């Protein structure tokens, strides 16, 4: 019997051994996949991973993001429901083309789509970017095949983007949870929101680390040698400084300070720090790293027609270009010259912010502004003619008949509910060859810079004015707030700010704010500024007006076309509901 037992045992052993040994055999061959080691061990492959971060920077122009969808202040009236006028931010976020959340929920589920085509809004791209940055930082020890310089580049870019992506969300949502670890699916992810200023400090600290690690110009380092001359756009010390300056300015501004401390006025400490950061960039400009674009070539910052990417030494930070932008023409070409009509028209109240050529605002009795001759370009700020399209302007270069000239008068061809509702149009990113007759759009690229030197001057001016007064300056800078504003004005062939506005901090503040409106018009800054200054709820910033006039210009009448619904809750976008429902520590923004 014992013998039998033995045999039975033997048999089972054989079978079990067969099976257990075949677990090895069941393992899938892994040659086809890239392992973490493949990705993170050498500079080239690691950089390949980091480079997708640039792709996550939301480019306003991208695909079908239309003007009405990111210029939400008192600057624009779109032709169709955009959500912001009605105060319906859930609609804005959920609508298929919103630049804030995602753009195509259905295709979001497809990994190939998520990866191959970055066509998402700030919310989605930022979280993706933050995770990728954290993964990069975590895997830095795996990087063996790299020089010290290259190691610093990887680390610097990762810190820059981690800070930047948090910041990009904070501008719209406030204090988002700050994620600085790589979560695994089984980790507890219930991290609480920090206070607004604490979160700002986290961002600033990331940016400062990036500042230490990143070079001023990739052209001047060994790693950039291979792509010398083509390194513009890569993360630099200037980029980190510029985002930091913007971030500190926001932190100093009444909204952020109000939410953080209850005091809806400027925070002078943050003003000083913002002025310091701005001053550091201005010093870089003095060294020749950056330079204001001369007025003659001003448009080069915004568009080109020769199939080249807009570039300028003035631009500090912008999203990577994704090619021809012909599709965007629907936002600023009209039905008969363009491809589509989803027009967004400048509002008259905003157009009035362009001063007279003598440097006085149009409301000023001494300015010489004639309400019955509002389209006169000769006596206005040159930026008026550059930015704004007025009745009778040429819109088609090659035609001689009346189709070539825009008709904005009441009853005119371009004064309809599907084109201009205000009597104005844009010119900033566009000229009269971008249409289906001249076909200038075939080689047309246009971009909206994220941060450029002119804004840095204005950041310096705004913060130095609050901290040290109009004629004060950051200690050691020897550069006053007034001088900073005048740098920007003089470039546009405008005189300096008139003497009578320079005595008082509050009066000068309004001129700085006006200068931002004019210089940065339609660069998606206005909604953020009105919120930052905590003025967006005030009636004068909620009325969108148009100008009624006849073909012969015998009368001009300002009319209210839309009134923006803006209450206290509209200072922040609502978080996606599915997110704040996940755990109680993450709270919905007040009012939503």
């Amino acid at each position, binding site marked *: 019997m014992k013998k039998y037992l033995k045999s039975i045992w033997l048999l089972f052993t054989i079978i079990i051994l067969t099976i257990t040994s075949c677990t090895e055999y069941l393992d899938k061959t892994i040659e086809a996949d890239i392992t973490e080691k493949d990705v993170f061990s050498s500079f080239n492959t690691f950089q390949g991973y980091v480079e997708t971060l*640039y792709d996550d920077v939301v480019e306003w122009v991208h695909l079908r993001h239309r003007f009405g969808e990111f210029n939400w202040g008192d600057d624009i009236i779109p032709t169709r429901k955009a959500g912001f006028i009605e105060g319906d931010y859930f609609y804005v976020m959920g609508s298929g083309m919103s630049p804030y959340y995602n753009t195509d929920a259905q295709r979001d*589920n497809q990994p190939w789509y998520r990866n191959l085509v970055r066509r998402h809004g700030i919310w989605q791209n930022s*979280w993706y970017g933050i995770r990728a940055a954290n993964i990069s930082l975590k895997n830095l020890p795996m990087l063996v095949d790299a020089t010290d310089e290259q190691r610093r580049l990887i680390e610097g870019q990762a810190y820059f983007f981690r800070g930047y992506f948090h910041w990009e969300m904070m501008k719209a949502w406030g204090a988002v949870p700050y994620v600085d670890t790589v979560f695994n699916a089984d980790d507890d992810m219930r991290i609480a929101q920090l206070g607004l200023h604490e979160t700002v400090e986290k961002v600033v600290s990331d940016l400062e680390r990036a500042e230490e690690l990143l070079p001023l110009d990739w052209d001047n380092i060994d790693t950039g040698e291979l792509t010398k001359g083509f390194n513009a756009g890569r993360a630099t010390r200037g980029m980190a400084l510029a985002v930091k300056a913007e971030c500190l300015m926001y932190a100093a501004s009444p909204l952020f300070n109000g939410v953080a401390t209850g005091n809806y006025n400027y925070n002078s400490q943050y003003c000083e720090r913002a002025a310091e950061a701005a001053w550091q960039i201005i010093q870089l400009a003095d060294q020749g790293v950056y330079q204001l674009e001369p007025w003659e070539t001003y448009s080069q910052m915004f568009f080109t027609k020769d199939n080249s990417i807009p570039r300028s030494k003035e631009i500090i930070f912008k999203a990577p270009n994704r090619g021809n932008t012909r599709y965007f023409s629907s936002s600023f070409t009209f039905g008969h010259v363009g491809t589509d009509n989803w027009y967004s028209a400048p509002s008259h109240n905003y157009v009035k912010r362009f001063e007279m050529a003598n440097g006085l605002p149009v409301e000023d009795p001494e300015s010489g502004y004639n309400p019955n001759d509002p389209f006169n370009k000769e006596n206005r700020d040159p930026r008026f003619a550059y930015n704004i399209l007025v009745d009778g302007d040429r819109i088609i270069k090659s035609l001689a008949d009346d189709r070539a000239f825009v008709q904005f008068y009441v009853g005119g061809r371009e004064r309809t509910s599907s084109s201009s509702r205000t009597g104005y149009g844009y010119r900033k990113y566009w000229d009269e060859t971008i249409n289906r007759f001249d076909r200038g759009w075939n080689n047309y690229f246009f971009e909206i810079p994220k941060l450029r030197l002119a804004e840095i001057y204005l950041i310096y001016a705004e913060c130095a004015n609050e901290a040290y007064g109009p004629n004060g300056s950051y200690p050691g800078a020897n550069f006053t707030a007034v001088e900073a504003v005048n740098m920007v004005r003089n470039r546009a062939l405008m005189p300096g700010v008139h003497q009578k506005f320079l005595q008082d901090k509050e009066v000068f503040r309004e001129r700085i704010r006006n200068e931002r409106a004019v210089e940065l018009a339609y660069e998606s800054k206005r909604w953020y500024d009105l919120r930052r200054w905590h003025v967006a709820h005030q009636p004068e910033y909620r009325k969108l007006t148009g100008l009624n006039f006849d073909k012969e210009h015998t009368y001009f009448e300002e009319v209210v076309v839309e009134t923006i619904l803006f209450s206290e809750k509209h200072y922040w976008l609502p978080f996606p509901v599915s997110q704040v429902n996940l755990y109680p520590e993450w709270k919905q923004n007040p009012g939503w």
Partner: protein
Amino acid sequence: MKHMYKKYLLSLSLLCLIISKTLLGINTGTKEINGDITTKDSITLNYNLDSIVHIPYGVVSKINAANDISVIYPNNTLLFDNVSNGYELINGKVPGLIGNTNIRGLGGALVVIDGIPRELSSVNIQEIEQITILKDVNSSLLYGTRADKGVILIKTKRGKPNEKRISGFFEAGINDPISYPTYLGSADYMELFNEARVNNGLNPLYSEDVIGSTRAGTDRVRFPDMNYYGSEFLKEFKPTSRFISEFSGGNRDAQYYLNLGWYHTGTLMNKGRDESYNKINLRSNIDFKIIDKIRAYVDVVGVFDFDNRVNGNFFSDASTIRPNAYAPLIDSSLVADKALLSSGTFVEGKYLVGGTSIYRNNPYGYLNLGGYNNNYGIVVQFNNGYKIDMSSITEGLSLNLNVSFDFYNRFTASQTNTYAVFQPSWNDDNQMSLTKIGEDFFSGSQEIRNSYLNRKFSFSGLLDYQKVFRNDHALSLSLLAYYDTFNETSGFYTSKHAHLGNRFNYVYKNKYIVDFSSAISYSNKLAPENRLGFSPSVGLAWVISEEDFFNKTFINFLKLRLSGGIMNTDVTITDYYRYEDIFEQQWGYSWYDSGRSNQSTVVSNAGNPNLFYEKRKEYNVGFESLLFNKEVFLEFSAFHELRSDRVTSSNNRYPNYLGGINPLINYAENKFSGIELGVTWRKNFTDFSYELGTSMTIYQTEITKRDEYWPEEYLYRVGNPINANWGLEAIGLFEDESDIQNHAIQEFGEVQPGDIKYKDQNKDGVVNDNDIVMLENASSTFIGGASLLLNYKNFSLYVHSTFRDGSYRMANSAYYWVYGDRKYSEIVKNRWTEQTSKTATYPRLSSEYNSNNFRNSSYWIYDNSLISIDRIQLNYNFPKQLFSKFFIQNMQVYARASNVMAFAKNKDKIQLNVGSEPQYKFYALGLKVNF
């Protein structure tokens, strides 16, 4: 998990030890089990309780099965019911089986042929000895993770010692199309299309003159009116024939079985190349003794498909090309330009093929000139096995080993020709001139395309122990090791399965039955520490009628059974490595200021190391009984199934901190519950007998957990059936402008009177996707079949019917959703116009895409319930004495009809095929001879 694995092995070993110990001092002797309960073969359900039923890797007496299983013996049913395929054979006969291979609504069950997962189409019915439908976890567990939706187990015939059989079977029949789509003729179409254009604010396209001339029908070249569904293209019938011969026999040492079959179907097309479908089956197996203790078998199967088709899709064209699109044929005698004439190829003697630059596919053209697509399929299966009798170790012990190779190859051999089409035009003097579009190109060569190959290798080893102790204790124990590999041309990875299984069956005094099964699966789709999955199940049965206290007056037999189990499955995880982060390289990321690029890398999957098996948790209760002098067999089951931990993409469960690329998680859950009922009533008289049977399933499905987030409560899928029609709730058609003004804004495009009006569910003043509701269930909730068999002397008559209720469909094919350039079906006749606004059954016509009307809504929903008389067959068996001189044992002739009748509210919709061959009724005569 590893511990569990070890514990399991330990307990198995202990079990073996106990068994071995028990052997000491036990005198063995076998006993026929339940020999006293015998009934004759039956039709719908086999209630032959002592018959041997094939279960995974073994057999069991039906009476000793503690599981919910059903058995079909084709050999018996083929005596009076000659179905042509396996689906027909089981449809409506098995409680719990819901159409095709769907058990309890779980979806496609695993089809196992001779121990290996295989295609049902690779076997023909005459080759089958037995079909076992394994419905519960306890019975299907041994087939591993793929058996998660139940198993349809097919055992093919084998030779029997000293029983020589030769039989022949021949059947010939015709397929009679049930219905064709009805489209409007050219003149009617043009009138209505004009109306559609006017509705869309456009001018009419067709003048009154053109419509008049078309209606007059004198000049079909200039005013074409093409009818596809007439005798011009289609025959009345399509022929089908089958021939099958079987040879089997052998002696004690070796047996053989051979089945040779041929199946042929002709074509419905009246023109052009002869299309046909031919299938040849060959199945042969031999069992032989190697030495006394070792028997072996070798099976070889070959299935060859030949599908010859023309190079065009007639039924698709017939349902899309409008009748006036082009002149189909142009009589050469009308053509003045002789040079042009000579450059064209005539069809049917004297015609040029008409067409336009858009319509270059003219059926006259491709049927006659277009070349062909011949599809070939080859299946080769090979099994080799050994049965090693190990009774020298201990009686009742045996080892079975099996190795199988399967190959499947398919390809298309085609000759693709192009041909010129001619477009006529007329000048002011009504002189016709022709434009030639395209060129004739008759390819002389044949091209092989769509080549596909897969191969499968599998191995199983089974250690089996069966014994009866002290007359009352019947014990059977099986231990299984299985693995297989599967490769295909398109797949990069070899897919592999492996599992261990065991079954333990104990019967005490034929009264108490305990059946325990378990499996350990190993999945390489899961993280290494999660790869082992342990699936246990248990079945208990009590033959209460065997108890002394049981009164057998009315109930002759009664078995109560209870089974339950948890099965792990990984089949729903379709990719590998989903448990860890996956990096993928992409094309070079184009760096922004130049063409220079660097290969970029992205993460395409966020890993979830905890990803685990999906589970099927189930329990069944039921009984089987014989009543009223064994005339009535009644069986009943109630089941409750949970598919839990379903693998799903976690879109709403995680914060976006994971970067929006969310991992797969085990989260969702579905519930299936219902009852199954089978009844057979059989009565015998002297010359006459009848059997009446029915089987039915009443069941419901419910989504019990789902990762979802919706803005409205009623949009949540949880609480609703798994398959359901979701859509807007239509509340009629807009009557007029004021009706539109007073209603919520419908955000699907401009609406006008005659468009569909939808209910604003959330009352927010707009109708959009947030107003979608669950409309109706899409799966039947009541389904089954009923059969009747009458025997009178040498005649027998069999009727089989099936029924279903509770399912709804959306009439959303191009036949029902007519807009733009779509072909107008007769459905549009009753469209909305101002005059017919009260009686219209179809929205106003639209000459462009109308996204308001043509979207899923209750307007298009229809009841899919049906009672169908599937088959009627009349048989005559020739008296045996008639042939005794001719070596013929018996001979039968029959006449049968399929899809004879249907009763349904929406019969027209259910029976209509659009864009493909029609559904058929089938009439056939057959002859069967046994030598």
